[in-house]
């Protein structure tokens, strides 16, 4: 039997988020999948064009309504649920957007959700991490149920571009509720590479001791074209903003190079970096758990080592 997969697009009104291309790559590993991307927006044209170019996408659907100017789960979920009937699978990214939205869709469809899909074993069998990634469970969705899932974006490459799927506009099938309203967002705009997609990430922990010391990491990151990340301890202490947190409750990332500076390597932090190609650790404690996962370790004082690296680059 072939699979008809609906992917909910994540976007900011003008640009398709990188996680959507990863959902498409995940969906493409399902045998004989026919992939549809659905864009809910106030004006979907630009995002729909980008989605139509993704390799493997057969069709793009757009639902336009003023309320979709902001991604409110309470408004989007009923649209998706109303359009889901012909599909065997509904996927979204395991970003905060998808994590917020997809369970609301699953409940409206009265089906279970598979969170954080990291591998597709068969059209109904998936692998996903539990216990902060300390165990991997394989679960199976029964034949009579729709598969609703979030895709762990760090586990999949992005689908390529160059496709040209057809775009269809559909009238909003549901009237969005008025009980939830967007007020504001404080998206920190920066010229630095995005933490979630960067090939290189330099992360700092509690050992940095101040926001000023974190500037040292920003300088190093700029030299390397890297994004900056942080441990929860560093974020909680106010050395770095919360959107830089890496780990179980922060971002799950898979860069080519991850440099952990003054980070002990708590399991909740390691969850976020398990898929990094190469992990480098700089820590003054040779017993720090981060060294158990580091490909290259350097024991020493970061306040001496980081300036030395900067000079040598």
């Amino acid at each position, binding site marked *: 039997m072939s699979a008809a997969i609906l992917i909910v697009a994540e976007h900011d009104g003008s640009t398709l988020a990188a996680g959507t291309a990863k959902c498409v790559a995940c969906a493409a590993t399902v045998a004989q999948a026919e992939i549809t991307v659905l864009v809910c927006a106030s004006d979907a044209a630009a995002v729909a064009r980008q989605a139509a170019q993704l390799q493997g996408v057969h069709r793009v659907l757009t639902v336009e309504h003023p309320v979709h100017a902001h991604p409110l*789960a*309470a408004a989007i*979920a009923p649209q998706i649920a109303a359009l889901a009937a012909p599909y065997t699978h509904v996927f979204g990214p395991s*970003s*905060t*957007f998808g*994590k*917020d939205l997809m*369970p*609301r869709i*699953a*409940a*409206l469809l*009265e*089906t*279970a*959700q598979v*969170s954080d899909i990291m591998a597709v074993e068969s059209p109904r069998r998936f692998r996903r991490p*539990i*216990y*902060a*990634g300390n*165990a*991997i*469970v*394989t*679960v*199976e*969705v029964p034949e009579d149920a729709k598969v609703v899932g979030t895709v762990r974006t760090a586990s999949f490459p992005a689908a390529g571009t160059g496709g040209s799927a057809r775009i269809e506009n559909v009238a909003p099938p549901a009237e969005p509720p008025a*009980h*939830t*309203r967007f007020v504001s*967002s*404080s*998206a*920190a705009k920066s010229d630095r590479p995005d933490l*979630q997609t960067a090939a290189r990430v330099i992360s700092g922990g509690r050992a940095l001791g101040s926001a000023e010391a974190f500037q040292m990491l920003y300088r190093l990151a700029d030299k390397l074209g890297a994004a900056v990340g942080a441990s929860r301890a560093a*974020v*909680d202490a106010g050395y770095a903003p*919360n*959107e830089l947190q890496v780990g*179980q*409750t922060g971002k799950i990332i898979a860069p*080519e*190079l991850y440099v952990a500076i003054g980070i002990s390597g708590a*399991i909740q932090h390691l969850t976020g970096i*398990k898929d990094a190609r*190469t*992990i480098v650790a700089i820590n003054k404690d040779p017993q720090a758990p981060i*060294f158990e*996962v*580091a*490909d*290259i*370790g*350097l024991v020493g004082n970061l306040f001496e*080592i980081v300036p*030395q*690296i900067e000079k*040598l680059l």
Partner: protein
Amino acid sequence: MMKRIIVGIKRVVDYNVRIRVKPDGSGVALDGVKMSVNPFDEIALEEAIRIKERGLAEEVVVASVGPTDCQAQLRTCLAMGADRALHVHSDTPTEPLTTARILLKLIEREQPFLVLLGKQAIDDDNGQTGQMLAALWARPQATFASKIVLAEGKAQVTREVDAGLETLEVDLPAVVTADLRLNEPRYVKLPEIMKAKRKPLETLSVESLGITPRVQLRTVRVDPPPQRQKGMLVENAAELIAALKAKGLLAS
């Protein structure tokens, strides 16, 4: 009507425990392992208690679906400051959709103006129950909350999203799920633990709520994660840079 908050509490393996996967792949070894209140639920409860302390709520009710053992975690919650506990007995773990259905029954009975849950349970890392509950209840949801401001019939909730922070306004009643930075839960003092023994804890059966639990997902097996190879140590910054160049990670 009493201004009431319901807080969902899950008993989970303590976050400090390094869990082990059973060699036969049937699951995670739980015998004799320390169990605690899910950390995000502790934060949700702390928020509920603070709202009550500010005079904006009259009663905080904690609710847990699970085996008899989860009464220990409910007692901890009563010691923290919850007024009353509801234990819905289930010896087998419930999937989030079933948990949400059960919580909805409790909501219909208790008529809360606010339901606070954790953003995820750290055992299964599902992160679904709050959103499912809000959908079934046809009410607003505000997930990953780092700040809640209550006003007449409404709440402004600041959420931790990938790009930074987002603020939503929701009509009450609503479901809010707690993120780590919402607050720092208080420590429970010994006299409170003694006092908590006298607070009401009611046990209900799933069937008495008119719910037939559904298990949809079948666990095929549980494996340990792939282990990373222990790498090499370098002596200084120059060797580190040389090692990165050797791996092709820095232009030489």
